[in-house]
């Protein structure tokens, strides 16, 4: 017998949120937050900023769904993605104004430094983890595979051909490297997404005055 997909549809979630169901807000937020974060990272290259703007996006979405239903709830992903993009654009405009606004320079420098430090910390922890993964790989060929695939964005088939690998072997090397990388990141502490989730749910819990 086929396993039924228990995931509620966006239409269901929208209706429940409109009816005041807080669990559905939580469910929706957890489902869409990783995608929102990645859209923002894609536009800014900044993991720390992505977490901040993701929170803002979620607050806007939840507030909107609480107050007014969407005309086409099944198109929620497109709506969410657009809000995330708009927030990035607004942030860029703000950034541009900051650079030309002498009066607020001191305050903004503090804000920039804090976000910059967080960004550096995320990149640093990724670098530490991937350096260890590479160092643990005995074969230079496997290390080269990792760099060519993830850093140089080279085609998998081309890499396999040049390194004399079958595609299943390639996938095994990649799978092991990814697993080890994630294991090392987890050992370094909470991941960015975990921190984000904790922060967001603390924020959203205090946002009921919005509607």
């Amino acid at each position: 017998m086929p396993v039924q997909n228990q995931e509620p549809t966006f239409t269901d979630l929208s209706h429940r949120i409109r009816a005041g169901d807080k669990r559905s807000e939580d469910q929706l937020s957890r489902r869409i937050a990783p995608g929102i974060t990645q859209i923002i990272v894609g536009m800014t290259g900044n993991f720390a900023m992505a977490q901040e703007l993701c929170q803002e996006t979620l607050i806007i979405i939840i507030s909107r769904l609480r107050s007014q239903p969407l005309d086409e709830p099944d198109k929620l992903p497109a709506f969410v993605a657009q809000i995330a993009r708009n927030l990035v654009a607004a942030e860029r405009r703000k950034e541009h104004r900051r650079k030309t606004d002498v009066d607020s320079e001191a305050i903004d420098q503090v804000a920039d430094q804090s976000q910059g430090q967080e960004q550096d910390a995320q990149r640093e922890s990724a670098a530490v983890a991937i350096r260890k993964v590479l160092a643990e790989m005995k074969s230079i060929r496997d290390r080269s595979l990792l760099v060519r695939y993830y850093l140089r964005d080279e085609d998998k088939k081309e890499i396999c051909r040049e390194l004399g690998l079958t595609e299943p072997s390639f996938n095994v090397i990649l799978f092991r490297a990814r697993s080890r990388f994630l294991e090392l990141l987890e050992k370094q502490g909470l991941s960015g997404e975990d921190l984000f989730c904790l922060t967001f749910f603390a924020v959203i819990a205090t946002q009921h005055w919005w509607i």
Partner: protein
Amino acid sequence: MTLTEQPTAERYVAGTLSDEEVARFEEAMIDRPDLAADVNVRRRIKAGLQLLEQRQELDPLLSTANRRPQFLRYAAAAAVLVVVAGSWSVWRFQAAGPAQVLFSATEIGTANVAKNLLLARTRAAGASVFTVPRNAGLLHFQILVDDPDGTPFVVHLAATATSGAISFNESTIPQTTDGFADIYVDPRELNSGDYVLSVRSQSGAEQTFPFTLHVTP
């Protein structure tokens, strides 16, 4: 994430999707946290590698094998020579002492197989007795192991002579076929007598299979 989505995630991170494809993929990520998680890992690995490259730490990692100092390599080579020479001396003076009689399936190449023999532990039966020709080819032992998933198995053969056990080489069985672990034995180096084949699984569990071999000329 399905396999067909992987190239899209690759291309999304590489920035080679068209605007329309990006929009569709981003909507899919909103709906699918697993897809977003995959992109997240790719980006973090990429960011880490970029930082290593900026700091010029990447090239040394790619050009250097996990090398030991040169003198250690010579010392290791010397140690191997000593062990090999020692083993050869011991083998030479043993009463019945071929160094290698066990072969895995990958080692036999196109060698002829003279007989297929089944080794299984049963409550009723005693040790199996096999009569095999000395020079007709390899003996293919199909071993019915308790845990077919316990690969790789380390296989060891010993002759249980009254004057003391004589061990032969160990071999490895990387995988089972239909529940059987396959190993090949070269009878040219064996005398008639009692033997024990032991099979150790990856978890350390060991099964032993005693048998008697009559080797005919």
